[in-house]
């Protein structure tokens, strides 16, 4: 078995769920960039889709974790890119933990369980985009799609910073 890369970028969201497709779109953008340009040598990209409870499978051996998801802020303009430390109290609620299916072992619970089992990475960071709706069967809005490449670029910057 190969060595584990120190950074995990875990993208959550329903690819068929309107703006909730943000996470999978960022995962695809990161993979496309790695194919044509420079691979993220120190990071793995995991598209968890609408199964965020798979995060625990990917955590062992990771030093840093970047989560990418859609955020639910009713008063916010859709298409704002937000960045938080995961344990920041001001962190917004995420779609993967609210409207669409989680198994109650959402990201928060998994990270708490990871801490209990000594699996929690040293750094846990969130990139999220504010959305209007996560309706199944719809395409993401243009406002959210416009943030996919900036989010992927920011993810690459964070990986480089963590790799130093």
């Amino acid at each position, binding site marked *: 078995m190969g060595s584990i890369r120190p950074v995990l970028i875990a993208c959550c969201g329903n690819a068929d769920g309107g703006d909730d497709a943000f996470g999978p779109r960022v995962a695809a953008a990161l993979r496309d960039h790695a194919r044509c340009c420079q691979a993220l040598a120190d990071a793995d990209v995991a598209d*968890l*889709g609408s199964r965020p409870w798979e995060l625990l*499978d990917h955590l062992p051996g990771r030093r840093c974790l970047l989560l990418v998801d859609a955020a639910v802020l009713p008063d916010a303009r859709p298409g704002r890119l937000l960045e938080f430390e995961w344990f920041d109290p001001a962190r917004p609620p995420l779609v993967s933990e609210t409207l669409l*299916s989680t198994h*109650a072992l959402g990201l928060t*619970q998994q990270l708490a369980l990871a801490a*209990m*089992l000594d699996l929690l990475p040293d750094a846990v960071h969130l990139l999220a985009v504010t959305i209007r709706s996560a309706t199944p*069967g719809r395409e993401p809005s243009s406002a959210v799609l416009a943030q996919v490449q900036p989010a992927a670029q920011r993810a690459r910057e964070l990986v480089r910073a963590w790799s130093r």
Partner: protein
Amino acid sequence: MSDSNSSLEARTIRVAALARVEGEGALHLTMHNGQPQDVRLEIYEPPRFYEAFLRGRDFREVPDITARICGICPVAYQMGSCHALEKAMGVFHQIDPPIRALRNLLYCGEWIESHVLHIFMLHLPDFLGYESVISMAADHGPTVRQALRLKKLGNALVCLLGGRAVHPVGVCVGGFYSAPAEAAVRELLPEVHACLDEMCELTLFLAEKLDYPDLERDYEFVALQPDDEYPMNLGPIASSKGFRVDQEDFLEVMEERQVPHSTALHAIIKGRGSYMVGPLSRLNLNWMRLHPRAAELLPKVCQAIGHELPWRNNFLSLPARALETVHALALAADILESYRVPARSSVPVEPRAGIGGHGTEAPRGICWHQYRTNADGTIAQARIIPPTSQNQGTIEADLRDLAAQLNDLDDETASLRCEHLIRNYDPCISCSVHFLKFDRQWV
């Protein structure tokens, strides 16, 4: 989490949101003079439109689309849609035995992952008196780590055949887009054997160390009942109360109806009433077809819990799931050991007008699909009956029986007991919804 008002005569317990259950749901229980007056399990999940937006889609798109109905059991939706569409296209009986074996292997992966997640992360905390798996892990870290290892293996099996664990993409009508290399298959075998041994020990632990609440009812158990294997993908549909029908005739014996307090339809057996699907039904109807590794555990489990089969207490769904996990691991080992790359990974399927109905055994019970196709292979009509909607009526009946035992309990404890009972069914609420009425009146 809960609120109540009490008086000398009436007591209302509301659980505003059910924890550790897929999707969203709530319970309303009103008791009067110690007897249940009103029992409602309310589903307030946003409605899903899958049956509607499948119309007009090419039949080849259906497995990938239906896989997204449920994040927990995508394989179940893919298998149901594939088998039903293969019937519509007239190729059902042409599926090669090696492809059928790979489908069973794929299902083994899903059962392992889903059952282990439910047993150890969602249900076991109830039995051990913990609020969640997080607090449980503080005292039972090794057990939780074992569970994570088992769950990861289940995902690895799904990934082997499905291309990935999350929304597998390797499944197609007719079989699989490709078959795995023998080297990739062999690589998993040591872990399967190791996990099998661990799960046997864990199954005995669950039987010997847990206290199971006593709530027996005269259920009608419904499950697939093939002649020669424990049910997963194939077999007629049978009931403990006397019917045994071909898959296509399932709608002759059951019907769905809408209830005002839920966006999920309730299913009944015509002329009778609610019924149960899931691990307890499968085990009660098919225990004699368990893999030998699971079959040899069965008498020890029965002795430990003090009940011979049939089990009529759905709190025993937990050891039933554990036995099924052993079965799935052992079956997976057999399939992996005998695997050779098949001559073809799928059979050719030509579009035609047709109709086909088929159900497979999702971890939570029968998930039944029916499709009518146009001559060009597009979907004219789709109908999907998930297991959780089939269990809705039975869950409410269980709660009605439980209610009489709650009189001497404080409201918070009573609420937790109700939640514990509902979790017996491992309800997958987010996929059990047809759009008929949207109710947001829970407070």
